[in-house]
């Protein structure tokens, strides 16, 4: 009884208030506030660390497996084992030819389709306790070392912005792109 008497009156008040508000405020329908701030190309370059297979965005600098061995032993070996055999962290070496077997071994050498991903990932995320700490030369060198351990490049092959995207990984054609299916 109480509610049936009062709800219609309350409703009328609400509608009247809403009508008044609509007159007072004209909302800019569908128009976002456009608060993005312009940013310079130099500033973007400091943030842009992703490297696609084309190698676009790879920095200056270079390195070889011979130099990379030193970086690896200092910064990587504790987790990835001597010569990339793994444990406690991921195995980096071997497994080529194993992918169709009952015991596939998926490593940088046997599974990763692009060498650019190796540079990209080491630079953005490794060493795990201290990422963004390696110089570009160190990243090129340690990438060269991991590729060398997998028998993909020579011990003195220079890895740089031109050569790294040219490296043909053994499993380059091993993926079925499902993105447009």
């Amino acid at each position: 009884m109480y509610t049936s008497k009062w709800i219609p009156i309350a409703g009328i008040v609400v509608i009247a208030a809403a009508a008044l508000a609509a007159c007072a405020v004209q909302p800019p329908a569908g128009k976002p506030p456009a608060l993005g701030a312009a940013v310079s190309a130099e500033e973007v370059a400091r943030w842009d660390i992703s490297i696609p297979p084309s190698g676009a965005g790879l920095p200056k600098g270079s390195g070889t497996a011979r130099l990379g061995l030193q970086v690896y032993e200092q910064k990587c070996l504790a987790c990835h084992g001597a010569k990339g055999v793994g444990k406690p962290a991921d195995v980096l070496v071997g497994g080529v030819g194993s992918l169709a077997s009952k015991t596939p071994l998926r490593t940088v050498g046997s599974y990763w389709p692009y060498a650019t991903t190796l540079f990209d990932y080491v630079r953005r995320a490794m060493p795990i306790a201290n990422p963004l700490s390696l110089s570009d030369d160190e990243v090129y060198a340690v990438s060269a070392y991991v590729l060398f351990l997998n028998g993909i490049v020579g011990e003195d092959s220079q890895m740089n912005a031109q050569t790294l995207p040219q490296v043909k990984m053994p499993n380059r054609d091993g993926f079925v792109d499902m993105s447009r299916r």
Partner: protein
Amino acid sequence: MDNRFHNRNASWRSDLKESPVAKPRDMKNHNSDASPTTQPSQGRRVFLAQGAALVTGAASTGIAASANGQSLAGQPWERVYGAAFTGYGQPSRFELPVVRHLLRPYGDLAPGSGAALTPIESLEGIITPSSLHNIRNHSGTPDIDPKQHQLLLHGLVARPLTFSMESLWRYPMTTRTYFIECSGNSLRALLPKPVQIPAGAIHGNISCSEWTGVPLRMLLEETGLLPQAKWLLAEGADSAHMSRSIPVEKALDDALVALYQNGERLRPEQGYPVRLLLPGWEGNMSVKWLRRIKATDGPTHTKDETSKYTDPLPDGRALQFTFEMGVKSVITRPSSTMTLPRSGLYEISGIAWSGAGRIRRVEVSTDGGATWADAALTGEERSKCLVRFRLPWEWTGQAAVVQSRATDQKGQMQPPRKEWIAQYAPDNRFHNNSIVSWAVGADGSVKNVYV
């Protein structure tokens, strides 16, 4: 483990002792940190002192102490004044064993790498409490100052722009309820032998929250995508700088730049202060701690979309960019490590979801898949959201195998486990949406089994 907890409600609770769970939080310490209002209240002391004075006064007026009052029903907590207010609420101390199940493949070497799975066996309804939401972290949870954090949109755009968190907060917001499932969910259901741990420790890399934020489309319109922009690279500000490539179509469809979860600002472990949300797709594509989106002409082929989150096939090839999460369901009650105390009527309850959209139907079997019955659904009107299903069940005391199978709006149905396994290489751990089976023994014990 708190014995009272187990005695109180052993029938539908899992035995957490078998699970590699986190240590329950210390409620006492937590409360004393939370707010000055949790300090021992002087007000309460005053109140009690007044009570004592009243009793004394009554005695002095010659009224006999009432034997009647002492014999009235009332538990001890009904006879003392309750606790003071707290600034931030916590579950009952009796619920302290309800915590996430930790999966830490690198152990103490990288304690924040791996996953924390939702204890789905202890939860009901559709929404996952923020504190129990599943987590997949690659290099721990960063401690981000929102005043220093920026989101950069650049690449194949007309105007590269940065957005502060304060500016994002001023955009028109959208609120939606979506599940997030890690594509590595249910990997423990692929171990050679069925492992006897709670359902959440096996299938709990799934959660569902209400998310509020700015549609990504709105920010992309502000930067202006160039015609050759076909993909976006999304990158987090964690120390892994976890990154994934996303087709532009998804970004313009239902992608959200989320700022809020279940009404409050995102938890740090859910991407505070800002995360991407790609409804229905592999959980790690909803990049947390979002710092950069780059428009590109093709996928970047990051580490987490080549060496991981690809689905190996028996012939040595692998499926790449399998974004959508398949139709799936799990019975949460009864489930592994629980015990049914006696025969009689129970309610079978569980969760279902599909990355393709809405759940159309969930069927339940109690005879290992020989016959199926339709379960009642709650929340099935929502797309890419958890659905709760329920079915009454008279347990006769005989051995039984309970299963559920969901069908989504596209007519896709969960596959049997053997069928699913046969599609992939023996080491595939992604996109396991096969039917889950729990065996109820004649003794009432519930076990994880492979059917």
